[in-house]
């Protein structure tokens, strides 16, 4: 097996697994940059995956080939609505962010499975007919060398995720809105003094994270699992959280980390078909993202610091 062949297997597979992680990690960034810790990313992905699959199954007659894309939008919307629970609990009711996030994860699984049983009277959904399929991207796939590696046998969603990451970087670091968002996460009192509505910014941050988390879940469900059950989302949300930290709360850094984690995940699945990886136990690849994140936090791989006011409540008038 030549080196090119290996790249042609590994890179599309890496991007496939990375796409949901990129989107969800970006969601985490919007929430944490505004000052709200969001452990509930996993739950938001569950809701997104559930919504995407159910919407896809129910409306495939109506939307035809566009079904998965419409389902993505609906999943983002439902994810945003669901994240409102986290927003209200943490911002308005001053609940501990981590506790509320844990509850969001439990609630999401409970609600999604409850509804699956209510709608379909069984523990998991049918397999969707129109998911995201492997495609050759027009024109770009004809470029020699780069084309076959990056743009053949790949998925649209991977490129959508990368484009959204670039947009997110622009929003967070190059727009007035992004500056305000970051200021409420670093020093809410200073932001408040400057006339920024801290509560509003934080609500927006959490809602965007809900939309992106829902998007991530729906991408995963429609490109990888193709149905929804209790095991569809099992740890991807936490891996996205890890990507966010590993990428130091920076959209492009998180994207890089998510692609790296996608690489590790895809290797643990396709590793057996690659000659140089046959002897590496899959457990090493499975735990690599988590161990690396711990090392990153510890400072061995460049120190990762959270936004300063992340996880704190802002109570007007208190010092």
């Amino acid at each position, binding site marked *: 097996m030549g080196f090119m062949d290996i790249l042609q297997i590994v890179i599309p597979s890496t991007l496939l697994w990375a796409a949901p992680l990129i989107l969800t990690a970006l969601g985490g960034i919007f929430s944490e940059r505004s000052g709200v810790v969001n452990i509930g990313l996993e739950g938001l992905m569950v809701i997104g995956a559930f919504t995407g699959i159910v919407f896809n199954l129910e409306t495939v007659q109506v939307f035809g080939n566009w079904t998965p894309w419409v389902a993505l939008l609906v999943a983002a919307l439902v994810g945003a609505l669901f994240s409102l629970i986290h927003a209200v609990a943490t911002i308005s*009711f001053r609940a501990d962010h981590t506790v*509320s996030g844990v*509850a969001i994860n439990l609630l999401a699984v409970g609600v999604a499975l*409850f509804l699956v049983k209510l709608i379909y009277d069984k523990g998991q959904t049918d397999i969707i007919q129109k998911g995201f399929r492997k495609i050759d991207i027009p024109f770009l796939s004809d470029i020699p060398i780069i084309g076959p590696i990056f743009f053949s046998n790949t998925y649209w969603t991977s490129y959508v995720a990368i484009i959204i990451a670039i947009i997110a970087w622009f929003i967070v670091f190059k727009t007035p809105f992004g500056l305000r968002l970051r200021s409420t996460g670093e020093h809410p009192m200073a932001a408040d003094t400057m006339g920024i509505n801290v509560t509003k910014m934080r609500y927006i941050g959490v809602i965007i994270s809900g939309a992106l988390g829902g998007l991530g879940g729906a991408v995963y469900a429609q490109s990888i699992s193709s149905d929804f059950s209790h095991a569809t989302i*099992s740890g991807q949300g936490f891996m996205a959280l890890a990507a966010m930290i590993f990428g130091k709360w920076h959209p492009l850094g998180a994207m890089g980390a998510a692609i790296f984690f996608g690489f590790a995940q895809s290797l643990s699945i396709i590793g057996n078909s690659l000659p140089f990886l046959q002897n590496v136990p899959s457990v090493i690849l499975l*735990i690599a993202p988590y161990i690396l*994140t711990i090392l990153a936090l510890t400072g061995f791989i460049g120190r990762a610091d959270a936004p300063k006011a992340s996880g704190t409540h802002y109570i007007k008038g208190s010092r």
Partner: protein
Amino acid sequence: MQMSSRMKNLLTPVIAVLLGVLVGTIIMIVSGYDAIAAYTALWNGAFGDVYFVGEVVRQVTPYILAGLAVAFAFKTGLFNIGVEGQMLVGWVAAVWVGVSFDLPRIIHLPLAVLAAGVAGALWAFIPGYLKARFRVHEVIVTIMLNHTALYVTNEIIRSVLSDGKERTDMIAESASLRSPFFEVLTDYSRMHWGITIAIICAIIMWFILEKTTTGFELRAVGFNEHASQYAGMNVKRNIILSMVISGVFAGLAGAMEGLGTFGYAAVKGGFTGVGFDGIAVALLGGNTAIGVILAAILFGGLKVGALNMPLEAGVPNELVDIIIALIIIFVASSYIIRWFIDRISKKGVK
């Protein structure tokens, strides 16, 4: 009359539970289910028969220990989300000792239980040490270690404790917590001796925190790290100690499953959920020993009773997961509940 803060502390969890049940009821009515039939089925499935009571006790056992683990760390201002992972390593460690030795019961059983506690302690030492030494937030590290524990224990079960199989052999009789006495008493439920260990641990936690100097220091660090430092306490040592003791409780919760309920360890596709439910137990129990026991009984009853809901009332048992999650959200949002209590009790005066 202004309500005392003690009264408010008691009232808040009760209101949170009632709100959780209320929302659960609304969900059932909206979904077209018969709520009364569902709650009847829930009650029958938890307390309708001695068998079910035995199963509730079986479920309550790891809940108490997981709840104690979360609560203990909380008292030192640490959030141990890693109970799930510490429990998994404890489970496998206990089973490891259970299958590999052939010893008299008086040595074997304590050794297996001890192994679980030590494994949990070591797993919890990592976030404790990283927090103390590098100021790394324990929440993230414990989450990452949960997943690491899941994959590592799966690998150990596959390649060390069996020959590529999905589960280990049964543990030796001499390491088992199973109790023929309880089994006969509860119509052959899986209730086992572990409940006594859980209750002893609750007493130990109360004793350490309330009656010893160490416990005072641990709580002091939780209240105010800087003041404790100034008063001459070793903050770093206390942070590590708190995580380690918390890990012991979590590891023991794993021993309850490995040596009592199941008698083996199996490869898992996902988490058991007991560690996360432990957070709910600790929160609802106000992070006190007696509160944890009461909350564990409530959640254990709900979880076991829920299994009867699809059979008797046709309601998905996930409804109970929804209710538990809602209870956590309401307890966490206690600020708003207290605010309401204040408003209402003030109005009572006028």
